[in-house]
């Protein structure tokens, strides 16, 4: 082995090591966010989103370690699957959380959806009576 390939190998190893550590730190960020944030919506920010970057870094490290070209499309497909699914599940959970009043109103600076919901509830009556709940609870 000549010295040049050796250094390239070391650089790739170092980069992927950094990627692995930072990627796992993103999981820790999710856990810290889960424990520290006050309500469901803010927890969701911490829970699902850093994982996008985390998985990206981990897959990149995996691709660098394997050193064959054909793993890259596989890894990209795995990552794109995550990109497609994460917003959908986050939106579903977030919508369910908003509709069942999982957030603390005192931690919101503005809520521009509430007026719309109340107006809609007043004109045609929501199926699950969302509109009357906040007035009764405060």
């Amino acid at each position, binding site marked *: 082995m000549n010295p040049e390939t050796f250094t390239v190998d070391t650089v790739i190893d170092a980069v992927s090591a950094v990627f692995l550590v930072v990627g796992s730190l993103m999981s820790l960020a999710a856990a810290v966010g*889960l424990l520290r944030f006050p309500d469901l919506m803010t927890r969701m920010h911490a829970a699902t989103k850093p994982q996008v970057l985390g998985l990206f870094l981990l897959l990149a490290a995996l691709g660098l370690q394997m050193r064959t070209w054909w793993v890259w499309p596989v890894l990209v497909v795995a990552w794109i699957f995550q990109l497609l699914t994460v917003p959908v599940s986050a939106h579903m959970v977030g919508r369910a*959380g908003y509709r069942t009043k*999982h957030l603390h109103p005192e931690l919101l600076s503005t809520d521009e959806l509430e007026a719309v919901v109340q107006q809609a509830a007043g004109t045609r009556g929501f199926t699950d009576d969302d509109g009357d709940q906040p007035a009764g609870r405060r």
Partner: protein
Amino acid sequence: MMDLVLTITAVVLSLAAGGAIIRIARGPSLLDRVLAADVLLAIVGAALCIDMAVNRHLNNLMLLVAVSLIGFVGSVTVARFVADRREQPRES
């Protein structure tokens, strides 16, 4: 160097998994628990990924995709249920 990386990531992921499990146990509502379970699943995925990178194999790749899809289907299903369920006890 890879041994060191493996140790660090193992500690970090264990802490993260511990945090997620605490939230599953404590979580005031069902949605919080679903969210925390989703995070736990993502941590399992991260662990699979790190194992593959350190040991240089690709055996778990499809398992990784399957795990993330299960997390997706699970949280969407529960989210749909909750939207219907949680109104009732407060109204009665």
